[in-house]
C-alpha cells in the first residue's frame, strides 16, 4: 500500500482480491473458478473494516456453497487478508448469463456443453428442443435424455453422431 492511493479507506486492492478468487474452484467442476461461474459478485470493505466477498448461489440447494465459503475464507487468509467475511446474496437471482466467455470455453474443453443463450433454430418457437452441440465431436445432432443430471445445474444429453452421452449446463 502506498500513501498515494486515491481511496485511502480501502486497505486492499480489488484487482488483487479478484485474482486470488480465481484460485477458488467449483468442487463439482474443478476447471471453473467462482469468478468464471459468476458466483463471486462483489468485493468490498464492510463497515467493520473486514474484507467482504458477496456470493450468489447457482441453485437454492447447491451443496457446494458451504464448501465454497470455507474455501474463499481459507484462500484469502492464506494470502494475508485476516478475517474475511463471506455473505450470500439471493437478489438478483444467479443466471448463466453471468458465466464468463472464458468460463464457457473451459467448460466445453472439460466435456460439458456450455449454456446456450440464443438459438437460430426456429423449431424451438414451436416447442422443439434447443440443439446442443456435443462437446466432443461438435455435432448438433443430439437429444435430451433428461432435464436433470449429475448436479442441479446440469441436464443429460446424448450425441447421435459419436453416440457419447454428455452433460449440458442448463441455461437459467
Amino acid at each position: 500500500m502506498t500513501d498515494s492511493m486515491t481511496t485511502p479507506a480501502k486497505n486492499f486492492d480489488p484487482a488483487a482480491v479478484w485474482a486470488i478468487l480465481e484460485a477458488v474452484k467449483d468442487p463439482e467442476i474443478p476447471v471453473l473458478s467462482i469468478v468464471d461461474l459468476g458466483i463471486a459478485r462483489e468485493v468490498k470493505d464492510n463497515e467493520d473494516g473486514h474484507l467482504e466477498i458477496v456470493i450468489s448461489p447457482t441453485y437454492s440447494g447447491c451443496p457446494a456453497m458451504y464448501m465454497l465459503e470455507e474455501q474463499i475464507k481459507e484462500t484469502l487468509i492464506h494470502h494475508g487478508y485476516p478475517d474475511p467475511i463471506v455473505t450470500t446474496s439471493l437478489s438478483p437471482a444467479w443466471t448463466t448469463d453471468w458465466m464468463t466467455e472464458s468460463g464457457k470455453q473451459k467448460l466445453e474443453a472439460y466435456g460439458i456443453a456450455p449454456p446456450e443463450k440464443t438459438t437460430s433454430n426456429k423449431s424451438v418457437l414451436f416447442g422443439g428442443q434447443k440443439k446442443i452441440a456435443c462437446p466432443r465431436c461438435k455435432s448438433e445432432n443430439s437429444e435430451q435424455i433428461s432435464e436433470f443430471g449429475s448436479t442441479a445445474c446440469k441436464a443429460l444429453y446424448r450425441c447421435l453422431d459419436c453416440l457419447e452421452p454428455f452433460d449440458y449446463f442448463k441455461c437459467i
Partner: protein
Amino acid sequence: MTELSKKDALVQYAAQIGDNGLIIGHRMSEWCFRAPALEMEIALMNCALDLIGQARELYTYAAVTQDEGKSEDDFAYLRDEQDFRNLLLTEVPNGDWGDTIVRLFLMSAYNKLFYTALANSKDAQLAAIGAKSIKEVIYHQRFSSEWLIRLGDGTPESHDRVQKSLDTLWAYTGELFTMTDAETLLLADGIAVDVTALKADWDQVVSDVLTQATLTVPADLWPQLGSKAEGRHTEHFGFIITDMQFMQRRYPGCEW
C-alpha cells in the same frame, strides 16, 4: 388471545413456507435408491434438493428475523410435530410412482404461482427467495406434467392407477388456498401472498394438464385441513420427523 406481533407473524410465515419445502423434499428423498430407473431417481433427487434448499433459505430468514440466536437447523431438527405448519399434501406417504408424480405436479403448479406472487412481496428477502425459486419450480412442474401425461394417456392400467392417485390426493388440495392469521396480517402490508387469489389460475393450469393426460378433474369434496392453521397432522407425520430428527435428538449439536 394475545395479539400476534408483525415480527412473530413474519417468523411464522417464513417457517411455514419452509415447512412445505422441507417435508415434500424429505418425502421425495425417500425415493433415493428406489426409483424405477436411474434418470427418474436423479430427477426426483434434483427436485428434492431444490425444495430443501428453498426451505433452508426460508428457515434461515425466520431465524434471523426471530433474533433469538437460533439457526435453520433449530427449525428443521428441534421443533415438534405441532410446530410444523406444512400443507398436509406434502406429508402424505409417497405411495407408488403415480402418487408421487401427482403430488409433485399439484404442488409444483401451486409453487410456481405462489413464488411468482411472493417475488412481488414488499419484504425484500422473501421477494428474493421467491424470484430465485421460480426458476427451479418451473422444472419440477414440467417434469411432473410430462410424467402425468405419459401415465394418464398411457396404458389402461397406468390411466386407472393415476386417476385413483389423483382422486385420493385431491382432498388435500383445499388447504392450499386457506389463509392463516399470520398471512392475513402480513397481507395487509403487502408482505404475504393472498393464496385464495391463486385458486382460479391453479384450477386452470391443473385442468389443462389433466385434459391432456385424459384424466378427470375430481370434484371438490370436503377438504382435509388442520396442519397449516393448527399443526394437526396426518398419522404419517410423526414418522417423518422421527427419521429426520433422530441424529440431532440423539447427539445434540452434532455437525458434519
